[in-house]
């Protein structure tokens, strides 16, 4: 049976959420109202630049929002998952579950 053609939205979704760090960021934000840059960095043990790049991609897609502010003299960035991002994460989980169900049946 030929594979169903992917819609444009699915292809974009694949590229964005499939990557490990981005998937981790979205999973972590799904169970926390907000997490700071440092909290995410500590969770995934990635460099500042690497985390910034991944977070920016998710921000550009509208999956997460970042609020920047000063706590005293220190600049802080806090991230939240948007409803669109939550929906994308759930859709990705559904895909994974579907794959597991299909391969178990096979």
């Amino acid at each position, binding site marked *: 049976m030929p594979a169903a053609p992917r819609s444009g939205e699915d292809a974009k979704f694949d590229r964005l959420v499939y990557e*490990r760090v981005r*998937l*981790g960021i979205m*999973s*972590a*934000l*799904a*169970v*926390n*109202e*907000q*997490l*700071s840059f*440092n*909290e995410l*960095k*500590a*969770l*995934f043990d990635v460099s500042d630049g690497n985390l910034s790049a991944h977070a920016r991609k998710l921000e550009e897609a509208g999956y997460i929002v970042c609020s920047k502010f000063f706590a005293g003299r220190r600049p*802080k960035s806090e991230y939240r998952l948007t409803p669109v991002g939550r929906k994308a994460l759930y859709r990705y*989980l559904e895909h*994974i*579950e579907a*794959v*597991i169900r299909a*391969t*178990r049946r*096979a």
Partner: protein
Amino acid sequence: MCDMRSNNTVAIHSHALGTLNYIRASIEAAGACAVPGTAGIAMGAVGMAATILASIPELAAYWMAIWLIAAAIASAVGAALIARQRSRGGLTLYSGPARKFVLCLAPPLLAGAVLTGVLWQAGESRLVPGAWLLLYGCAVLSASMMTSTAVMRLIGAMGTLFVLFGVAAFELPLRWHNLILGLGFGALHLVFGVLIGRVNRGESAEWQT
């Protein structure tokens, strides 16, 4: 051809399972509050000091005041040590997992504070040690759900022992109350503080290798 398809199926299946496990691990790590063993040890030391003070015959009448002051000191020290651990990791002090940890602890502790006042006013202060141990155990048990899987069972076991000590305290005669408070807030904190410290050290060594 058939073998190849079977191999692909296994690869896709294990990749999908691996992804699910990764998501689960990320969620667990993001939802867990790190509890340093030193917090338990310090709180246990304060509990031991309170036990010794309250066992001095001249001070025995002030046992409740001694234990209330000890509770305030132990809470402040425990909170400061958890805050220090979070700030060392560059983490916000009262956000995400730490906030959930405090919110889990708070209701039983608040109930304990109200009950202490009610029992004291009703002249039933003999029931206070049991209520303290029981409700503190409930607080620890519910907060254990917000800790990392590595220490969750240990903290849960400590909470269960506090609950059992609380139940026992209701049945024990008055003269045993200071001892059982010491065994709970002193000894249990000390022993589990050491055990949690060992688990945490083992974990960080694992990460470094």
